[in-house]
């Protein structure tokens, strides 16, 4: 057990150290592009978005939940790419030739991606607060938002790792990513509520786990516990299924790679 903690700690610190070496990318990791969505989209569509349709006092408060989950989506889907680089340059081989538990490399990556994602969500909620968006459910609500984000993030990171272990090159990886991420965003309730979508899109969006995560987080920000609780229950069930599915797939891909 002590050995397991030692190796996971060291591997996680490697990701942290790498990030801190790249000062540039560290700044851009925390002040991420998603913030621009919140600030520009949120204010841009202020007049265009009908308060009646979005069921929120203003568009930016409606959008906050979407931006939080989009951050989880981006981080999760990109979460495997560093393992892909490790696989390509032989570093993974070096790690696997040491007497570490086979899951440690992957677990360290989960830990790192989840921690960064939490920090980013806090930054987003902070910026939203500057624009007057305060979560109706307070600090406990923020904790639940982080929890839902993590539930979704675990599955996404697992998918990302599965792709990383399966593709031949990182070119392929980024093609698959680009292909996945935009449809997932547009076919969700991130930008527009399901009720305002064309029927076929709202049907598809219902199969998108992202929709369920957003629909649980949104009332935590906008209205309060009464509306949020049943949806939180729902999202926990859906995410349990989603995560189990993704983790199973990624475990298979991992086992295939390391023989």
């Amino acid at each position, binding site marked *: 057990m002590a050995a397991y903690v030692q190796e996971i700690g060291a*591997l996680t610190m490697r990701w942290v150290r*790498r990030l801190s070496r790249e000062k540039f990318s560290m700044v851009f990791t925390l002040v991420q592009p998603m913030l621009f969505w919140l600030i520009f989209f949120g204010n841009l569509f202020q007049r265009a978005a009908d308060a009646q349709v979005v069921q929120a006092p203003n568009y930016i408060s409606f959008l906050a939940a979407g931006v939080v989950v989009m951050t989880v989506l981006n981080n999760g889907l990109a979460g495997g790419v560093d393992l892909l680089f490790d696989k390509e340059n032989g*570093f993974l081989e070096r790690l696997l*030739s040491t*007497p570490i538990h086979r899951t440690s490399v992957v677990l360290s990556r989960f830990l790192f991606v989840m921690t960064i994602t939490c920090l980013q969500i806090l930054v987003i909620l902070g910026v939203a607060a500057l624009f007057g968006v305060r979560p109706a459910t307070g600090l406990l609500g923020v904790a639940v938002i982080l929890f839902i984000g993590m539930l979704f993030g675990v599955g996404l990171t697992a998918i990302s790792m599965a792709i990383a272990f399966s593709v031949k090159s990182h070119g392929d990886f980024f093609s698959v990513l680009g292909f996945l991420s935009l449809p997932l965003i547009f076919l969700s309730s991130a930008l527009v509520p399901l009720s305002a979508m064309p029927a076929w899109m709202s049907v598809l969006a219902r199969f998108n786990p992202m929709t369920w995560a957003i629909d649980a987080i949104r009332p935590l920000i906008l209205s309060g516990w009464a509306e949020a609780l049943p949806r939180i229950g729902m999202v926990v069930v859906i995410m349990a299924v989603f995560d189990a599915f993704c983790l199973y797939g990624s475990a298979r891909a991992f086992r295939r790679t390391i023989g």
Partner: protein
Amino acid sequence: MEVIGRTVAIEASGLGKVYDGVTAIDGLSFQVFAGEIFGLLGPNGAGKSTTLRILITIVRPDAGHATVLGHDVVREADRVRHLIGYVPQERAIDRFLTGREHLLLLGDLYHLPKSETRKRIAEILRLVDLEEQADRPARTYSGGMKRKLDLACGLLPNPKILFLDEPTLGLDVQSRLRIWDYVRRLRERGITIVMTTNYLDEADRLCDRLAIIDGGRIKALGSPNELKAGLGGDIISLTVGASETACVDRLASELKGLPFVRAISTKQNGLDIRVESPEKALPVVLEAANRAACRLEFIDYHRPRLDDVFVALTGHAIREEFPKTDE
């Protein structure tokens, strides 16, 4: 286990691996003795890395089995991992970490106490002569320095057996010689070395014993001298004038079947003839050249070299610039 008084460090028997229908290796069996430098010599794609990856437990064989210091590489993989060090073929280096940070990371992965890791790092950095650069990010390292760091990483676990995959690939002559020197010094410390290479001179001068691998199979096994002696006969190399390459084939057919001639391999502008006793064969060969109306530009006679062994065993040169043998 003892074989003629020598301890067996690695025992591989019938190893096979197939990747999506491509046979990487096919029924490899060999032994590595404790304290020797054992080489896997073969061209690109021969299956050297695959063999090494099986022995270091990161690839599971589809057939056969192997033991490292008595431990099965599949069933007791974790035991094996504690006993070995590995230097991969690629420069497996994280460019954002310093040399020292690589070694500290590995110390934790081998579950060493911090004090022990620090002690070993100081010693290893001195050995590979990387003390001054140890605290610079690896992205500022030259190729030779990266290779030294690679080697240092392989040594950190204090291995009984060190596996090196093409340790001098792409290095300049100076760095190659230095790596050879380290490898010999490690042997003196009692470390068993298993390395792959596709350099004939490296195999010849560095390895105590070799397995020549081609197309996933072992073609020969033995010390460089045994392999050369096993070939039998010496080599007469003929070079014809640039304008007379047409006569090479004529000369080859003249020579075929003559007494003393064991094998002939044609090159762009000449022939390599393996003969039983050169002093008897030489007049016969020259006569044949006369009959074939070949003007010889250059005649060379030498004891078999490892490249002759390789050609004789595999039917082709280790790198592609030569055509095949006509046995």
